[in-house]
């Protein structure tokens, strides 16, 4: 279980990295944390001809709010998000996800942006990014490109990121007043992918939900944005249990999980329903300033 040979490039600027990507002629892979790519290379499920290591490029480690947007640079590790006070105080869904993503050691190396670029429907960050309405900033030969997180994944392990582009930063809108969010994941043990996971974000004004967004992890070939379920909540009271139930049902309907060792389809669908309700309750409490 060892990787095959490849050429290793360690650029010190994005320009150099982009040149290496062109030189790699479609057979080069970008590596930041490498916590998904290297395991695939060890199993020889991936054998890129060139590895372009971003770790030597300065300025890709931003994790801060700037002008109403949270900026997350390409080299920000999961563990930095987990330990960030800013994230803990203002982006609870991200903190929830960070605590249940892979394991603590992988979190010290793997990156938020790398997880998105990997395009795995089991990736927790893809759901978080989509649910929070993130922008995905890349650079290519023609300069900067911005993708939307909601439809970023195009198929399993494929994204809108061009083969000549490098994902450099993700930007997430800062929370609005009355916003609450939560991420709930069922895993068989630490380090497992989700049997199902649900991220929810709601904005509450005077006890009424004015905005909602729901994302589902690993219950379909892509990260699922449960738009109908979210829409059904708008205008409802934050204490409306029937509305939560209905949102759970709608989220369940849009999920399309497949049976595997984590459980049969019908189990995963029901998990979506249950987790959606529970996540809504937590997000609701948080929106009202009560930690749940």
């Amino acid at each position: 279980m060892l990787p095959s040979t490849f050429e290793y490039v360690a650029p010190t600027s994005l320009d150099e990295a982009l040149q290496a990507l062109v030189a790699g002629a479609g057979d080069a892979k970008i590596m930041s944390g490498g916590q998904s790519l290297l395991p695939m290379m060890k199993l020889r499920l991936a054998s890129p001809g060139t590895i372009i290591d971003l770790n030597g490029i300065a300025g890709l480690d931003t994790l801060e709010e700037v002008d109403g947007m949270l900026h997350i640079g390409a080299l920000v590790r999961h563990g930095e998000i987990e330990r960030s006070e800013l994230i803990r105080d203002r982006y609870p869904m991200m903190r929830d996800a960070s605590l249940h993503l892979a394991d603590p050691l992988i979190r010290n190396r793997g990156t938020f942006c790398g997880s998105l670029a990997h395009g795995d429907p089991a990736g927790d960050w893809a759901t978080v990014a989509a649910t929070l309405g993130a922008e995905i900033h890349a650079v290519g030969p023609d300069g900067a490109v911005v993708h939307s997180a909601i439809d970023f994944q195009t198929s399993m392990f494929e994204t809108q990121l061009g083969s000549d582009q490098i994902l450099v930063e993700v930007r997430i809108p800062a929370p609005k007043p009355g916003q609450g969010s939560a991420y709930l994941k069922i895993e068989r043990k630490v380090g497992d992918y989700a049997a199902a996971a649900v991220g929810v974000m709601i904005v509450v004004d005077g006890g009424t939900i004015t905005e909602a967004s729901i994302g589902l992890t690993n219950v379909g070939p892509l990260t699922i944005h449960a738009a109908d379920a979210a829409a059904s909540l708008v205008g409802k009271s934050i204490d409306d249990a029937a509305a939560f139930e209905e949102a759970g049902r709608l989220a369940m309907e849009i999920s399309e999980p497949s049976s595997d060792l984590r459980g049969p389809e019908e189990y995963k669908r029901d998990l979506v329903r249950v987790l959606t309700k529970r996540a809504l309750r937590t997000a609701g409490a948080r929106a009202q300033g009560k930690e749940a």
Partner: protein
Amino acid sequence: MTAATESTVNGAIGQSPKRVEDDRFIRGMGNYVDDVQLPGMLHMAIYRSPFAHATINSIDTSRALAMPGVVACITGQDLVAHGLAWMPTLAGDTQAVLATDKVRFQGQEVVCVIAKTSYQAEDALEGIDVDYDPLPVIVDPKRALDADAPIIRSDLEGKTDNHIFTWESGDAEATDRVFAEADIVIKLDTLYPRIHPAPMETCGAVADYNKATGKMTIHLTSQAPHAHRTLFAMVAGLPEQKLRIISPDVGGGFGNKVPIYPGYVVATAASLLIGKPVKWVESRTENLMSTGFARDYHMEGELAATKDGKMLGLRANVLADHGAFNAQAQPSKWPAGFFNIATGSYDLQAAHCKVDGVYTNKAPGGIAYRCSFRVTEAAYLIERLVDNLAHETGIDAAELRKQNFIQPEQFPYKSPMGWEYDSGDYEKAMNIALELVGYEELRKEQAEKRAKGEVMGIGFSSFTEIVGAGMSKICDIAGLAMIDSAELRIHPTGKGVLKLGVQSQGQGHETTFAQIVANELGIPYTDIAVEHGDTDHTPYGLGTYASRSTPTGGAATAIVARKLREKARQIAAHLLECAPDDLEFDSGTFTVKGSPEKSKTIQECVFGAYQSDLPDDMEKGFEDVTYYDAPEMTYPFGTYICVVDIDKGTGQVKVRKFVAVDDCGTRINPMIVDGQIHGGLTQGFGTAMMELISFDEDGNCFGGNFMDYLIPTAVESPDWTLGECTTPSPHHPFGAKGVGESPTVGSPQAFVNAVVDALHPYGITNIDMPLSSHKVWKVLRDAGVTDE
């Protein structure tokens, strides 16, 4: 048994000194097989079959041979010339070393590549071209017995089916009679699924052949280095005096490192042929897919009882899935191990069991994973049946057990399937456990919770073990009596070395066996160095598994120390000019009775043994060796109680509390005993909750890496509440019984019983392991239970 005297010597039995071996482990200075790096060493990798059953038409290694660094590719045909293409298994079958005619399970060894680096060896696997014709695959052992099933072992002359053996024990007629009289018969059809010991260190070997001396040294992940040397000598035709097996530090074994694997054999043959050291260390995937699995017992059990809960008889019918080769590790005369211990802790009138072994297209094995030879499956079956009887009769599960326990005055107790239990006090252990868990309060809480629709369960296991194999009259492996040995030499300065035939894989022998000497001779345990694992430097033994080290090697250590204590007594008498019988011995000092000022320390006696002034008929020196053949097995026991809460929404099972009261007889080092119990309980938890090796209908293996084969982390693992009970073994020299496997044998059924107890109101009488959330969820939803 001579009761262990209370000794004040440093490290005597009953004390918990810190472990001697830790000094190297905490510095990263352990020495495991993969740490062995020899000059000129080559690396081996194994090309394995992607198919579960297929004819091999041809094997082409030419591309691989042309790749950088590749020294050799070895195929089954190459081994035929040396008579090594097949090897005998511990169960009297044969196993392909490298496949010649066909492959019989996914992951089977087909070609070995030897290269200069491990990376080059791995690269070359992609240059192996094998042409296969896939054959129909059998993964279901029931299907294996169908008349039209394809024959997996077509290599065996005259073999026309997939049946391996039928083994029966007990009295079928007497059992029928008690069943005919019974008011109630509880039936249980259950699978103890295929799991894997998965020690953190995988298996491996470094074979180092010295052309000049003709000596073959094999650094091997071995729980039984002496037995392995003998088997290597038999299989490979190597002279045994030219074979040295060094089992250095072993990173966990749990039974996985008892068998001999094809990789060991080929690495050894390659070193012999090439004349250089060859290292093979398997990957985790190889470990999980191809080396000794455990369990895979399809069990149908029946328990007969009166309506007021008097248990009368047990019947068990088992289909044992042994995979493609019968390579299970059991004593030769016991094709289903000690499964007939299945009457457990209960005084039944009659019992009968029948076990059929079959071949399937799965990895071979059936090893005793932290278990004495199928006692785990046996304990599971009876304890599950008893809890179901409690549900059926409405009698409290603890009370029902107490009513049916073998009573203390019945020991030695002859079980209906023929075992003679040495000792026990089952109710005592049960009462301690009930007290620790707060049983009455828990049942009240459960009733209240049920009224509110919450799901909580309490499960029991009052297991009886059979360990210490043991007893050459019934136990051998490949004809070798299951004895064990100890050789003790005390140097003139009173410090010495103890050499053992058993081999630690983490049990702490370097500490506990020194403690036995400390106890017997009064020499501080820190003055005794313990050596093991090197066949050139230790006396013969059958190794460490089945909790046998303390019952056999520990007994040998006590006896050899006692022999030397008697010699010391003679020397002391000589020096003090008194009769030996006039001396008292306590904590390392001989004192003349009634004259406390006249005394000699053990160290003075030892020094005397190397001086000129000795009694005329006494040999000089202070050393001896003992080979111990146990008169009987030992029978540790205990009661475990598990409390679970179930999330109705997700089906997740949370173990709230787990109480384990073990009685393993005398405890040498209570700290280490507790550590063994913690570890075994966690393995039992893994078995019950998440571990599984499964297959699809094409024989593709699921559970071949740690992403699919789930072993618990610190987050899932429960906390354990331990209690203690001590009933010394009457026949062991210091009353010990062995403890390593009790928690893995005893605990899985406690988890399952707790979950079944929680779900019983919904009509459930069984859920097979692992207790995955989705299975629990299905029970709840089928019963109309929703999440709120």
